[in-house]
């Protein structure tokens, strides 16, 4: 189970590669490296090594790519409709998982189509983290935020990295 999880994790990451739109050998294994930069506001881009993750997944793309690669999806909810999977030629995570999941426009569109399963479809950030991080945690991969994402100056400001914590035991005065 653990190993197969890793593999699925790899495949997921592979899908990210498609995000970047790299065209080298997409049809079989996807790009070797995918640059993930949708969190560029607070973090440096992540150089995702798709090739390594393809190996970890033993080439089983569906571990990460749901129903889009012709295999049956792992998620029971997806299975409700996307029964045997389908090769729709859409492999990139962001082709289905919206980057702007929380913008008013997207939410309004979601409101019009109250398809419950799609209502629960995570945005790009959630999809990637859940797929990657879940596998990393369960299989001992790097799981700290900055193990993958180097923070930029704006990120440091958001997390108040400038603050030096008081020594342990000292009362903080907060309630």
């Amino acid at each position, binding site marked *: 189970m653990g190993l197969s999880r890793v593999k699925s994790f790899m495949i997921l990451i592979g899908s990210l590669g498609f995000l970047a739109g790299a065209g080298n050998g997409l049809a079989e294994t996807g790009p070797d490296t995918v640059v993930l930069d949708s969190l560029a506001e607070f973090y440096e881009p992540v150089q995702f090594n798709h090739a390594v993750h393809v190996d970890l997944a033993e080439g089983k793309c569906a571990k990460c790519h749901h129903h889009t690669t012709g295999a049956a999806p792992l998620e*029971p*909810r997806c299975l409700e409709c996307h029964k045997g999977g389908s090769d729709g030629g859409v492999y990139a995570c962001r082709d289905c998982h919206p980057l702007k*999941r*929380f*913008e*008013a426009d997207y*939410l*309004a569109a*979601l*409101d019009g189509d*109250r398809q*419950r*399963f799609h*209502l*629960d479809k*995570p*945005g790009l*950030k*959630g*999809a990637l*983290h*859940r797929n990657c*991080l*879940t596998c990393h*945690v*369960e299989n001992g991969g790097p*799981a700290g*935020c*900055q193990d993958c994402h180097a923070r930029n100056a704006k990120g440091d400001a*958001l*997390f*108040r*990295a*400038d*603050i030096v*914590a*008081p020594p*342990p035991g000292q009362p*903080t005065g*907060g*309630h």
Partner: protein
Amino acid sequence: MKNFNRRNFLKGGLATGLAAAATGAPKPAAASGTFGGYPNSMGVLVDFTRCVGCRSCEAACNKEQGLPAPDKPFDDLSVFEERENGQQRRTSERAYTVVNRYDQTDRKSGPVFRKFQCNHCNEPACLTSCFVNAYTKTPEGAVAYNSKVCVGCRTCMVACPFYVPAYSYSSVINPVVKKCVMCYDTRLKFGRPPACVEACPQEVMTFGHRDDLINLGHERIRNNPDKYVDHIYGEKEVGGTAWMYMSDVPFEQLGFNTNLGNEPIISYVKDFLTIVPMVLTIWPALFTGFYLLANRKKAGVGAEKPEPKQEEKKS
């Protein structure tokens, strides 16, 4: 003997008035008083099985609400060890939301992290208890707060079943209550979710219409019956809350109070409170009337006491 009669008469009047109030008031109150929340109001479904305890939501909240700097940076995970009087961290004037860690012995993915903030009740006890109407339940679902009218009595802090509202004890001039307002002014009223929801890397929180979220939550439970506890905390508790929770460990183990019941807090005081206006308005007039009736001859004639009482007895 005469004295006794008058007292009985007054007692009878009082009893009749009370009986009328008691039989008349509670029934309509029970029928019309329960407010199940605005239709189409928004909510947030929090799935603790997804939270990894990164505290991004705390950082986002601090920035969005312009809160004071914390004691430790938001990537400092030692806060999970903090205890104050044996209690884990709670909301304060400097933090409208906090994440706490609950260690588990036999959970595959380790400890459970619980995000805590105002639950934005359908029938908020804070709103009910506030005598200057500083709180508003907006049609979007937020329990908003107006510090301009707040007098700082802190009754809401006592009333809240979740111990959410905090007080700005640090302010000498104008201390007010501080709590999560679901980013109402900056986001919710423009159709956007609170900052914490958007900041979460795991999308632990799903934002949507409360009705849809309840369906969606039960769908998740149906699809993963072995994973989830078959309960959505907040669907019914204290009359329902806009923020609702799902977990794979029993809610009691995450510091949730599971003994609150499904009645809104106001239900416990409604019957009593309906009588208060009557007591304050009708009773003074009624008893003043009785008194004047009983003594109506006394003032004019200036006679001794027994006389008016005899009059009363005749009538």
